[in-house]
């Protein structure tokens, strides 16, 4: 997903979808940040990763005690 031509519109869509009540100044900081963040993410889609499994952990057994609140 390359950096879109209209960064402002793309960021506006994502910020609105996330329901973030940002000020215009904060929105501008997201617009400024987005190309770098997008390029960082895009740089992870390389051929060497094509057949890698994600390093995720899941066990169907609930941890005990399960009362740790987060």
């Amino acid at each position: 997903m390359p950096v879109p031509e209209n960064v402002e519109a793309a960021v506006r869509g994502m910020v609105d979808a996330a329901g973030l009540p940002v000020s215009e100044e904060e929105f501008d900081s997201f617009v400024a940040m987005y190309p770098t963040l997008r390029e960082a993410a895009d740089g992870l889609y390389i051929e060497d990763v094509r057949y890698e499994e994600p390093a995720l952990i899941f066990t169907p057994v609930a941890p005990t005690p399960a009362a740790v609140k987060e």
Partner: protein
Amino acid sequence: MTEIPLTITDAAAAMRAGTLTSLELVEACFAHADALDGELGVYLHRLDDDARAAARAADEELAAGTDRGPLHGIPIGIKDIIATNEAPTTAQSLVLDPAWGAQGDAPVVARLREAGAIVMGKTSTMEFAIGMPDASKPFPVPRNPWNTDTWPGGSSSGSGAGVAAGFFLGALGTDTGGSVRIPAAFCGISGMKQTFGRVPKSGCAPLGYSLDHIGPLTRSARDCAAMLGVMAGADASDPTTADVPVPDYLAALTGSVEGLRIGVERANHLDAPGVLPEAVEAFEAAVSWFAGAGAILDEVEISRYEAIRNVGLITMRGEANSYHQSDLQSRWSDYGMYTNRFVAGGALVSASDYVQAQRFRSLAREQMAALMKPFDVLIMPTAGMGAPLVEGLDDTSFMGWPVFTPFWNPLGLPVLSVPMGFTNDGLPLSLQIAGKPFDEATVFRVADAFQQATDHHLQVPSLVSGAVTV
């Protein structure tokens, strides 16, 4: 007048020699805090009465012949994103529900307490372990005892500054991208991010679920080893903990690096923008010491360095935003101005990006296992700079700094930061020692040998050395 021993090891020896009691030590540490905390902003909550009562009990036990080990009667600070029995846990935020902290001691705190440690209070942090100090919120802006115009690093700011200032001899921090190792580096002390899964992180407000580590900060590597020996081990409350035997870390401290194979990583570190010449000199001096001490050194170069660091960045953004999104929607202004911006950046990362980062993480794990196979440890600077000025810090500050900690969090490998010298402005510089999975013992051995031959970790800021008043 009670002088505070610089290390846990020295204090433990003095207690057993009968020249120091835990209560005297606790009083002396609180006296330092009385004198300096208005300037340093270490404590969010002090536990004077509880600590004194615990110290008296520790002294009585020791006198009666019950010795709980190297932490018996030792004052420690707890970063205020980790739950404790006595004090509220705020995460230095207006947002965290006070009921969350009412769960009582996190497993790691319970283990330290059982080993005789004295909990002195809760220490300042960047809000939820991220962001930057925001003076508009009702929390202290932490300052560095080496120069109070500078920042002690974060996010475990109070834990780092508190050890350096003699408010306690050890502390708990958390490290998701360097939050133990950065304050250790900027405050001139030692800080350990052990293997992911070595220490339970339940009872700690999360930042990045798969990147967080609760780690010790102390003056010496030996003291870190003493704390980690108590903290380590699987716990049913945290399914990410690994059921791997915990060795006797103190027994591994031979004082020698002879024959150990050390990979020296200059390529991604020494030429990075902003690296100070004196950081390069201090690093090369450390390398020379290891060579002279009989270690077998070889140059290494980590490939895909930036991409692996970005795996941590994407992962942290996604995991943090997941935890905070509801509160960001409803309580945006209750967050510090740099916390909400940073965390909300996770809304700009897609679910596919997050999973791709975890796939890249698998590749990175294989790559690093192959790279590290011929070595016992790798070494590189923690940062190529000293502590930055507090003035002007914002959510983008980190992006321009030569700080080399975040690379290691997505890999989950053990990394210890230890002092290696000073900048021309008198601010501490730091060395990272990285090991293989669950081989903290070798990392501690290397660091302890270095510290037996150097005294960088024993230097005390002039602000502190003039403040002993007990």
